[in-house]
Structure formats: structure tokens, C-alpha cells
């Protein structure tokens, strides 16, 4: 009896509880936040491994992650990704110089002068290589170019790591180095596991064998990409769910905007290998008081490179397994042909295979489905596209130059291709939502820009219908303030009852075309109007 009373009481209170109070306010006092403090001290989570075969099977044939189509969860009220252990706004903040973009993650100038000492080898995996210690004790992992494509993989790794860093991701420091194999020292403790899985001393013969299929120049010098060791690695992250043992990790990865929008960046840079095995979580900070920082790794299979050879025709165009084209090919005895098979690529061995004419920003595909990519909505894509468009032609040429590609025509082709792909991305994704952006309040004017016009994808801004409404921050209710007006210029006058409203009042300006609209939320604060929210539809 007592229980029944308690249950009834709970239900009654819950039902009559005002909705506004149960669901809180739309905008909080600190919105929009620019930092998500996900670096609360936690014990070091256990190291984990991801099996790449299982990762393929799981993502291809099983239902992983939440695919309910919800909006990204880790964004602020402006739709931006706050700085966190995952992402740091760099080019997005607009305060990064061209020199900083080009420097990327690199803090120094690479391995210290003097002989490199080999301390370990890697014979397995896509890209064999070995680990070296420089004269100052820093550890680097060296990877090489295939003999058929000198400069290709190392340039791709270098260029892409800088792009991803400028975009905001955590990546390892990367340096292009050159050395003579004979100049390498071998640590007496260096060990390698042979094909029989026996641990054997790492010998000169091992290095010779490993370097045999690697590009050497006429003088026998080998070019390598030296990736600086990220300390305290605890294994990769998955593109769905959260990591066990990391209580800072509260947003399911498939609902993180920087992982959903990663699709757009990967499509731009042709990063088909954008999967869990090429990520790394690392424990940063003092033992027991640190937090997990999330990195992207291994960009050897980007641009026109597939690390060990020029990129093949399928990657970027079709998943490793897709039923429809497979059965179409089977049932038509191969007469039906995939369109991408007949795409022509220029012959630049130091670039590999990348092009921009056949490329479609919405049809690009990584090696296999990615739950975060699957959840990418047009707002995520807009966010990412805006960042892509922030790279000027000159920025892109400067970035490509960091790949130190000897063939100037190849280098120019790569830059031109990236510029063209960038523009295709902009011209497509900016049209999927309202392309208005850069909102600013100046006195009694709300100014903005049209990204389609800014980037010359449209000659003039489409006419926008503008309507102001008051906004109840507790209930979400809107009350129209006057009639809608139509504007053709990139500014709109704010009604006097908005500019003169009481402190703490909220308003929303809706700018709409037939296809898209954007809500701009304003808050009266310290006698000024502040933009506190943006939502595109």
C-alpha cells in the first residue's frame, strides 16, 4: 500500500511538473561555449587493440552505433565544435597564420643531427618500417616510398597531416628526412619478430631486406617520413560509442560533429583509410591525473597514394564490399561496368592517383562504412565545408609544397586538384543548407555573408525572407514581432523592440529562402545584442 502511494505521488508530480522546468533552458548562461573541458583527471584507461578484420566485418555487416539521425551532440549553440581533447579550432578560428598552417603539428625540425639508431622493426601491416631513436633520445617511426612511386607516400603523409592539423585534429609531428642506409646504427637490444613469429635480433640484413623494395635515389639515399612517437598510447578509438575507462568521453563518437564532418575532410583529401585502426588515444598528463587525448594517425593512404603503390581505382568510389555493384557485375557477366573503372589519371608517380573531375563530394566513400560518417547530416557537412573553404589557393599550394615533391608539374597538379575538389565540396555542401554565415550584430543591424557568393559559387545572394520573433528561453515558444520582410542585401535592420528590449530577453531572426532557413538567436546582454545560437534547416 505504502509503495502504491509512493508510485502515484511520483507519477503525479512528474506529470504536473512544468515542462519548462523539467527540460531546462535552451540557452545557458555560458552559451555558446568555446571549450568543452573534457580533461578531468582520470586513471589511465587500459590499452586496447582493434582487430582490423573485425572492424571491417562489424562496420560492413553489423549494426553499430546509434543511427537514429539525431543532431550532433557535442556542438555549442552556434553549431561549432568547442575545443576539446579531440579537436582544437585552428583555421576555423581564423587566427592561424599561413606560416602556422604550414608548420602544422611540428614543434621542432625533426630528428636531431647525428646517426639514427634503429631500436625496433615492423614487418607486418600495410606499411612496414622501423623505429629509430635520434641523438637527443626522441623516438620516430620511419616509413618509406615504394620504388615505383618515389616521394608519393611520404609526401601524402606529410601534406595530409598538416591539413588535418590545421583543420583542428590532433596528429603526430611528421618530418621528411633523407639518409643513407649504411649510416643507420642498430641498437644491440633491437628485436624484430620474423615471419615465424620468433623474436630475433634486428640485423643489418633485416634493414637491407626491408629497404630493398623502397625508393632510393641515384646515390642510394632513402627518403622517409619520420613520425614522432606519441607517448602513452592506449590504442585506437572507435567511430561509435564511448571508451570504457574514459569518463570524459560522454558523447557517443557517432554523434561528435568533428567525427561526422571528418567525412568531408576525408573526401577532400581522399583519405580512404579513415578507420579506427588509424587512430590513437593517448593518456596525457601526470599518471593518475591525466586525461585521454585523441589522435588521427597514418595518412599514407591519402591523396593519390595507397602507401605501397599508387591508389587503386576503387578506393574513394566504392566500399570494399557493396552488394549492389557486386551482384550487378555478377549477373551481367561483367558487362555492366562501374563508372570509376574508366576514370583517367595523369601519370605522376610521385602523386599516384587522384583527380577532381569524376569526384563527387556526396558520393565519395572510405574503405568501409563508418557510423560517424553515416550520421553526418547537412549541418555537420556545412560545418566541415566551411573549414575546407577557409584554405585559400595559396594555402593549399603552400601545404602541397611541404610534401617536397621534386616534379614541379606533379606538385602543381596535386595543388590544382585539391583546389578543384575543395570548390566542388563547397559548391555542393553549401547548397544543402542556408549558406548564410558570419552573423554579426552592429548597432541595430544584423550583418552576415553568403558563402555561396563569397566563394563565387553564386553571383548574388538569393532573396531572403526575414522574420523576427521573441523567444522564450524556458519554453522555446516564439512570438512573431511584426511582419516578414524580404531582403536582397547582406544585412537586416533589427526592430527597435528588439534592440530596446529588457536585459536577458531572447529573440530569434529567421532568414529563409524557399529551400532553406537559418535561425539566429539573439540575447540582450549588457545592453547589447549577442548572438547566442544558430540553427540551419
Amino acid at each position, binding site marked *: 500500500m505504502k*509503495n502504491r502511494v509512493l508510485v502515484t505521488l511520483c507519477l503525479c508530480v512528474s506529470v504536473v511538473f512544468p515542462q519548462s522546468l*523539467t527540460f531546462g*533552458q535552451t540557452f545557458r548562461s555560458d552559451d555558446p561555449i568555446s571549450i568543452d*573541458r573534457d580533461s578531468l583527471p582520470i586513471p589511465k584507461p587500459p590499452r*586496447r587493440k582493434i*582487430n582490423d578484420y573485425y572492424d571491417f566485418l562489424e562496420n560492413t555487416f553489423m549494426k553499430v552505433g546509434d543511427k537514429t539521425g539525431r543532431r550532433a551532440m557535442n556542438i555549442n549553440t552556434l553549431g561549432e565544435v568547442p575545443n576539446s581533447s579531440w579537436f582544437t579550432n585552428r583555421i576555423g578560428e581564423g587566427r592561424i597564420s599561413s606560416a602556422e598552417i604550414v608548420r602544422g603539428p611540428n614543434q621542432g625540425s625533426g630528428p636531431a643531427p647525428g646517426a639514427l639508431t634503429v631500436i625496433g622493426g615492423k614487418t607486418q601491416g600495410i606499411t612496414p618500417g622501423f623505429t629509430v631513436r635520434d641523438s637527443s633520445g626522441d623516438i620516430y617511426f620511419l616509413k618509406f616510398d615504394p620504388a615505383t612511386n618515389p616521394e608519393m607516400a611520404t609526401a601524402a603523409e606529410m601534406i595530409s597531416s598538416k591539413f588535418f592539423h590545421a583543420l583542428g585534429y590532433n596528429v603526430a609531428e611528421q618530418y621528411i628526412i633523407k639518409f643513407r642506409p649504411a649510416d643507420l646504427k642498430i641498437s644491440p637490444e633491437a628485436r624484430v619478430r620474423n615471419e615465424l613469429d620468433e623474436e630475433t635480433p634486428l640485423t643489418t640484413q633485416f634493414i637491407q631486406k626491408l629497404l630493398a623494395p623502397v625508393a632510393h635515389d641515384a646515390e642510394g639515399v632513402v627518403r622517409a617520413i619520420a613520425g614522432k612517437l606519441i607517448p602513452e598510447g592506449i590504442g585506437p578509438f572507435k567511430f561509435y560509442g*564511448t571508451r570504457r575507462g574514459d569518463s570524459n568521453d*560522454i558523447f557517443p563518437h557517432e554523434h561528435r560533429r568533428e567525427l561526422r564532418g571528418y567525412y568531408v575532410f576525408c573526401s577532400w583529401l581522399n583519405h580512404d583509410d579513415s578507420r579506427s585502426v588509424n587512430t590513437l588515444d593517448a593518456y596525457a598528463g601526470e599518471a593518475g591525473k591525466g586525461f585521454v587525448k585523441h589522435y588521427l594517425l597514418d595518412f599514407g593512404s591519402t591523396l593519390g597514394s595507397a602507401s605501397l603503390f599508387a591508389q587503386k581505382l576503387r578506393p574513394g568510389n566504392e566500399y570494399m564490399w557493396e552488394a549492389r555493384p557486386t551482384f550487378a557485375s555478377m549477373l551481367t557477366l561483367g558487362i555492366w561496368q562501374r563508372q570509376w573503372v574508366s576514370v583517367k589519371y595523369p601519370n605522376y608517380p610521385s602523386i599516384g592517383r587522384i583527380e577532381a573531375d569524376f569526384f563527387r563530394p556526396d558520393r565519395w566513400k572510405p574503405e568501409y562504412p563508418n557510423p560517424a560518417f553515416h550520421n553526418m547530416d547537412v549541418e555537420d557537412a556545412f560545418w566541415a565545408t566551411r573549414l575546407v573553404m577557409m584554405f585559400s589557393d595559396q594555402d593549399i599550394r603552400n601545404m602541397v609544397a611541404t610534401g617536397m615533391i621534386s616534379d614541379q608539374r606533379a606538385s602543381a597538379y596535386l595543388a590544382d586538384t585539391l583546389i578543384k575538389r575543395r570548390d566542388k565540396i563547397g559548391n555542393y555542401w553549401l547548397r544543402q543548407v542556408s549558406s548564410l554565415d558570419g552573423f554579426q550584430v552592429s548597432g541595430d543591424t544584423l550583418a552576415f555573408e553568403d558563402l555561396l557568393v563569397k566563394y563565387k559559387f553564386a553571383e548574388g545572394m538569393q532573396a531572403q525572407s526575414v522574420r523576427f520573433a521573441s523567444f522564450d528561453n524556458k519554453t522555446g515558444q516564439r512570438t512573431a514581432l511584426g511582419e516578414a520582410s524580404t531582403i536582397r542585401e547582406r544585412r537586416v535592420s533589427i526592430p527597435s523592440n528588439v534592440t530596446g528590449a529588457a536585459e536577458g530577453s531572447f529573440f530569434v531572426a529567421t532568414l529563409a529562402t524557399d529551400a532553406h532557413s537559418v535561425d539566429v538567436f539573439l540575447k540582450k546582454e549588457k545592453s547589447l545584442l549577442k548572438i547566442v545560437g544558430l540553427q540551419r534547416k
Partner: protein
Amino acid sequence: MDSVRFLATLFVSFLFLHTSTLFGQETSRAEEFEALRRKSATEVKAPDRNAVESGILWVQERKILEKLETPGAGYKGFRPKLGGMSTGSGMGFGFQYDKVRMLDNQMNFSMVGAASLKSYQLYELKLDLPRLANEHAFVTTTARRGAMPQEDYFGLGPTSDTANRTSYLYEDATLGVKGGVRPISWLRAGAGVDWVKLNVGRGTDPLFPSTELVFNDTNTPGLDRQPDFMKYEWFVAIDTRDSVGNPHRGGYYSVTHSQWDDRLFNEFDFSRTETELQQYVPFNAGHRVLAARLRASFDDPKDGSRVPFYLQKTLGGSNDLRGFREFRFRDENQVLLNLEYRWEAWIGLDMAIFGDAGKVFNSRKDFKIDDVETSYGLGFRFNTAKSVFWRIDIARSREGARAFIKFEHVF
């Protein structure tokens, strides 16, 4: 009681979460996230890996598959051997022992013992020196003992009848050495010598009579008695294929000449010349391939000699005339042409439409192009870039349809 606790907890949580709002103190976004993180620290999250992934990872980390495949790996060099016996032997199982990279990485040793459900047996010792002269020369010595108690025999010649299907026991013991040079990567030439001891006896296939009950030594040379042979051979091979196990371009062209010397009766001396030409022509950026193979073998018995039936070349089965049963046709000479149109259905599967044409014949003047046996069919080849690891071929001929599941490419 559980539902009561749940609802009460829900209610209390509600109150706590929104007390601040009720009293006009809103929770900031940062405070909300921090609260969620502190709550997350007290929750037990699902394991990062399920049992299936853990299992696959366990196999991968211990390199179980590599150890099964790699000579010298396994348990102290011992590995189970599955299959790998002759066609029609049934499921075979055995053990293999390898010791590799002896004598400063120059020598490999292997030992195999295997048997099948149809009592086929194979024992083999091999000593390989594959990397002599900086990998430009090689020597292999082999000692082998095999027993195949249910080998099919339909009679000789192109007109043999399926109604005459019989079986016989074939036993061999071979000691041999073969060596050669590889002056450049695509050229191999060499020579070998084998001592071969053979025995033919009563077949044990319960469904078909033993060969000697249907055939005799006159129409089946060598049925009554089997000599020991010394076999001498030389060979030249040019191999420009891009991948031996799954070629898409290039070719393979070889000529082998062997001399079979009857050491007991001087009744079965003969020489054999075999030619194999393979060509692979890719198109559509290598996603389609036209593959062709022409194989010919010609035996020349010494004056008065005969070629024993058990050493005559055969046609039929999964590797040549696929619409016919294994060993269906047998004679002193044969010509075979295989044409395949292969296309990539997806990255792990190539399909093929194939046609086979071939004929066995006793004397070269008997060969007529208009009465060759033909078969055609459809193939599924599950592959990696380096090899076909699973092949399903479905073929049809005038004698019906045949389906094969094999763990190697046809050519």
C-alpha cells in the same frame, strides 16, 4: 519493488537536476557536462570488445593462421597438413615438419606424412637449396612414397567409354634431384634426374571394378608388370606473370623434355615433350582479363616400346577439361586449350566464363581439330592480390555437369 525503486530514483534525480532551475539558479553548460562526466565515472560501460572480436584478435596476435601456413612455424616446426593429396583422394590429413633457413639461410628441410579417407598415403622428404648463388641457382632433392588405391581408368584414347570406368592401385617411390639456374628473375632453366619405382595393383573403389577385370595388358600397356625407371629431364621456363597465384598480366611459357628409361624390361622406354603457354591480357584497367592456356604433351616411345598407361597424360577434371570427370581421357599425346574471360565482381571475387577444348590421341596423325572434346562453364574465384584461395567452377560437357571446389587457381 524494483519498479518502485526505479521511479523513486527517477523522481529524486528530477528534483536534484532541476532544483537550481526551480530556484532561479540555472545550471551552466559547462556544469552540466562536468556533472555528466562525474556521473559517467561511476557507471560501468560495456566492454570495448565482444567475444567474437576478442577471439579474432587472439588468433591474429598469436599468428595462428600464419603459423599453419608458414614452413618452419607451427609447434617446433610441426604443422597439420590438410588436403594437398592427389585429385580424387578424398579428405586428407597429416602432419608436416619443416626446418628452414639452415646453413646460413641456404637450406630448407621438410617432411610430410598424410593419409586420406580413401586410404591414399603420401610420405615425402625434401631438401631444398633455393637461394644458391645469391638466389640465382637452386637445387632440390626429394624422396617420396605414395599410394593411391582408387585411381580412375576408363581405357585409352579419345573414344574411351564411361561405362568402362575402373579403378586401380598406383604406388610409387621416387628419389630425385633437380637443379637449375635463374640468371634473371623471369627465366629459369635446369635439369633433373629421378629414380622411380612403380607398382600397379587392384583398385579398391567399391563402386567400380578393378582395372585388370575389364582391361588387359594389350589394350592397357603396363598393366601386367611395372618396371623401375630412371627419368632424366631438362626444362626452360619464362615467367613474366605479375602474380604467380593470381595473374592478371604477363605470361608463362615453358618447355620440358623428359626421358623415361625402363631399367628392368626395356619395354617401356619413351620420351616426353611438354609445352605450356599461358597468356594474360588485362583490359578495363585490369578489372577484366582474358586468360588463355595452351598445353601440349607428346610421347615418343622408343622403337618397340610402349608408354605405360599409368604414366600417360590425362585430360578431365578441375584443372583442364572441366566438364569431364578426373582422368577421363588418357593417351600418349594430348592438346588442351583453355580460354577464360575473367572479371572482378568485387575486390575479393573474380568470376570467369571459361571454355575448354582438348583431346588425347595415340598418334599425331590421329589428331583432328573437329572432334576435340569441349566443355564450358562459370567460375567463382575468391582471391587476394597474390592468390586464389577458393575456387568454385561449374562446368558442362556432353557427359553432364561437374562442379569443383578447389583451393588453388586453375592457371
